[in-house]
């Protein structure tokens, strides 16, 4: 169960809790839209399998991620009719080491490979081709720190819910703290893993999809945080300022995972 009662709008956006005072839009017109993606762990498994060695059968992955989603919906008190965007993912054991290193050397290349697998005619571009080593860390107590610890020891599977939209990064952090320890705020590890599993998450021909912030992480660069976003039919890893403000374009993931 969450610590608080939560409510969703008709398009599956978690409405900000009344105690949140950091910049957030109280209502959304849902102008920036994810593509229509059904929860389809079978298809996700195939994408993952092209990039990572996954030590689970397809059936096990499907069953475990369905259970995770069911738990999340129950704990959030989500009505059966309420649609929320959820993507299953797998992260291999990353081992000891620095988060920025893992991102630069393992996770971003994996996202690139998965995007190329699905869209050979388009590009994944790392728009920040500088060393990331020692520049990233998980924020303590927001969940991504637990995920980082877990993948040091072994692989995980999880489900990421894209329910926090039109929140500043700080407001997303405030909101996730209210959800309780069963939920974590997404960052470098889970968002990269999600894009391996669902490379078309930000591929939208008719509407502009939102940007995905690494809100569960912080960096040594005072004014910038990092994100994935689309540029037309292409996908980018980049950084941006003004994450302390709210924009219709911002979105954040909420994750639940289990160790394998």
């Amino acid at each position, binding site marked *: 169960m969450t610590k608080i009662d939560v409510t969703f709008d008709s398009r599956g956006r978690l409405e900000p809790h009344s105690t949140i005072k950091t910049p957030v839009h109280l209502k*959304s017109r849902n102008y920036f839209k994810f593509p229509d993606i059904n929860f389809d762990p079978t298809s996700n498994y195939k994408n993952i399998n092209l990039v990572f060695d996954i030590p689970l059968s397809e059936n096990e992955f499907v069953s475990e991620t369905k259970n995770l989603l069911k738990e999340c919906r129950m704990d959030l008190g989500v009505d059966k009719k309420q649609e929320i965007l959820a993507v299953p993912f797998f992260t291999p054991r990353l081992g000891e080491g620095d988060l920025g290193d893992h991102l630069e050397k393992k996770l971003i290349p994996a996202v690139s490979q998965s995007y190329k697998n699905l869209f050979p005619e388009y590009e994944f571009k790392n728009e*920040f081709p500088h060393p990331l080593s020692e520049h990233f860390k998980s924020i303590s107590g927001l969940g991504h720190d637990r995920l980082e610890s877990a993948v040091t020891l072994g692989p995980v599977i999880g489900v990421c819910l894209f329910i926090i939209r039109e929140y500043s990064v700080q407001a997303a952090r405030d909101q996730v703290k209210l959800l309780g320890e069963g939920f974590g705020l997404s960052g470098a590890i889970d968002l990269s893993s999600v894009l391996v599993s669902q490379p078309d998450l930000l591929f939208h021909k008719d509407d502009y999809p939102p940007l995905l912030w690494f809100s569960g992480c912080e960096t040594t660069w005072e004014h910038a945080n990092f994100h994935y976003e*689309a540029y037309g039919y*292409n996908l980018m890893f980049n950084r941006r300022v*003004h994450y302390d*403000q709210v924009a219709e374009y911002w979105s954040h993931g909420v994750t639940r995972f289990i160790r394998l």
Partner: protein
Amino acid sequence: MSATEALMFDKSLTAGEAKKRGDLRNRKPYIADKLAAIADMEEAGEISPIIRLEKSYLCNFQCTHCSAEYYMDRDLKKKETIDDRPKIDMEAIKELSRQADELGLARFVITGGEPLVMRDFDEVVAAIDPDKHYVITDTNGWFLDEVRAFHLKSIGVEKVQMSLDSFIEEEHDSFRNKKGSYQRVMRGIDACAASGLNLILSTCLINGRAKTKEFRDLCQYCTDRGVGLYVSYAKPVGSATDHPEFVIDKEDADILREMEKEFLVFSHMTPSYGSYKGCITVKGIITVTSTGEITPCPYIDMSFGNVMQTPLKEILARGMRNPWTGPHRPDCLIGEDPAFIKLHQTVTAKHKLLPVPYGEGFKDDDSFDRIA
């Protein structure tokens, strides 16, 4: 590597761009320093908009898609309206230049109307101060022969942005309602090359044009000549208010994004050396109208304040606080967002004199609920 160095935008400049910047540094080191500082400013969360200055709306053309049509005397006459609002003069421009310099802003575009018909054009350049700011002029090209190009260069203008709305002569002349204008643009391109003025061509993208052979041919021509092609999405404002069919859809914008990989073509949404500004309203551009009102882009006729009454810094801050214009969006607000287009048309239709003053269009407590 320091954090700031690491965050600097990708500076792998093309050889041509590096040469241009080197030349500017030799001639105008103060401006070169300011331009070089823009990346650091942006990384620190500050903004560095280009200032478009519309001192006069006088024009020798009457284009199908003119965003300034409702500011022109000929339109006010039709509406039997007299514009008795105070106008910016040279002193106001000098003060604007001073405030902009203080904020680290470095670029002015003289626009209109047609700047090259302004009798006081040289005086405006001087008031902006071409040793403190990088001065660009828009033009339809009609009066840009070689003599004029050399003169512009001699008074401190660095760059010309010239309109070419079709690579097919008859289509361009028809869209611009001016026979012979295509040939004048071609002459202007040669004049810029001869005089050493930097040049970009600008073209209006209407719905479906991105898929045409004509557009591809124009992109190829510009790439072959080494001239950047700036693509402006058609907006349903000014004389194009009654042309909603001009408005592009996402497919048009995405086709253009793909063409950027192949040609020297870009829009205001195109990343520049690693900086993805998205919609540049306030962050990348502002317009100062002849009455000193500051609008967030050339096509939005709603003001964030009057520079003759409110400090520029505060006006920019209003823009960054506003949910429509700040801090970031990846699409063109007035060219692609149907709800904002509707809001804009509803609000501006109530006003004979544009832009709509701050508080009546954009406002402090703005929200999306106004049109939701």
